[in-house]
């Protein structure tokens, strides 16, 4: 059964190793390896949707926009 990962890019923790974007790149690798799918919550004011789309495109992943509420988006990365 495929795992479902979730990252909220707005949830910033202190410390330079706790950045959610770093976790995003780590989780995307797992999706690329076929280990699961990744749901990402983001704010377009901080990260444009085109950037999230570019990540999918360059890594041969599918991106589905699950929710869009003003500038808030939730997307799903899958292989």
């Amino acid at each position: 059964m495929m795992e479902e990962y979730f990252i909220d890019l707005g949830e910033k923790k202190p410390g330079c190793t706790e950045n959610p974007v770093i976790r995003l790149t780590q989780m995307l690798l797992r999706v690329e390896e076929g280990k699961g799918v990744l749901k990402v919550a983001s704010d377009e004011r901080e990260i444009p949707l085109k950037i999230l789309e570019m990540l999918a495109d360059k890594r041969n992943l599918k991106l589905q926009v699950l929710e869009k509420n003003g500038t808030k988006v939730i997307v799903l990365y899958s292989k």
Partner: protein
Amino acid sequence: MMCFLNINEIRKDFPILERKIRGKSLVYLDSAASSLKPIQVVEAIREFYLIEYSNIHRGVHYLSQSATSRYEESREKIAKFINAHSSEEIIFTYGTTDSLNMLAYGYGLRVLKPGDKILLTIMEHHSNILPWMYISTLTGAKIDYIDITDEGEIDYDELDEKINEKTKIVSITHMSNVLGTIIDVKKIAKKIHEVGGVIIVDGAQSVPHMPINVRELEIDFLAFSGHKMLGPTGIGVLWIKRDLLDDMHPPRLGGGSIRDVTLDDFTFLDPPHRFEAGTPNIAGVIGLARAVEYLEKIGMNNVRRHEEELTSYALKELDRFKGQIDVYGPSSVSIRGGIIAFNVKGLDPNMVGGLLDSFGIAVRTGKHCAHPLHQRLSIDGSVRASIYIYNTKEEIALLTSALEEITNATIR
């Protein structure tokens, strides 16, 4: 562009460069974090472990004596590489961080008194800040910092104000691991020597990338790492000017560093062995010596010229993105190495790094163990691309092409 190096031949020595990342050629721009390893270094280590291995020093059997010769010949090689007076000035450590800690505990703890000053720069790597912070709490010495200008250069005007008779130690980077700024350490050495102090140089980013002559620079201590100069991890060098060898107390004590031990006392061996307690990273030393041979064959002047060319090209290309990309550090390549930190406006640097990874381009992101510098620049991190002998103009073009796609995607 004139080519001082036969890049194609050099690149053949690095099999990792054949790798594809997501179907794209690997563009490795992270040598400031750690350099790639040529097959010659890997083979030297492999051969040592497979057919020459033994522990060193004091052994009476052939393998031990042969390994000892290899180890000490490596020391000679490295001494010549930096133009040390003699090999006794070369101490093998585990890396630059280890070397700087050895200096803080072995030298700083001995000479510093309450009210004395340790002078650093605001650009320092944490490995050249934290040991001194701790030593200052133990000794009562105070730390002061030389600031940078808006151009990312050292504010040399501050030297007269910051260096006085209370300044016992100046410990500074030769090349910033973020800005690429090359500091005129000789100028600072002269100033500190006038007041009877010493200068410690963090050469982690400079020794792999430019000719180093410790006598010409007139410095007192130099620290550098093997893994940033084509060598293996776990090996570094601390060079100590021979006049100061007896002023330094070995901070690590144990077997291999003493002449005699009784129940009440012990006597040290002469330098450098008194500073190398325990079984050292013998294979690491062999690998480092092979890396030095590799670099000497290329010629450090050629290494520097190659990086100047690529850095100059990179800065010129990045200038096209003015208003969209902020580049930090000096604009003149005569005072900067092949390290380029930048930010894409409006994007987290880790996101930029993740995107570049999607293009097969390896850079480093974050604060690069230089939090005070990032606070000084009022930024929450940066992307860092760093160049070495195996990088090409085409790879820089790939970087800027990727950045163009990224900046276009940020236009809201």
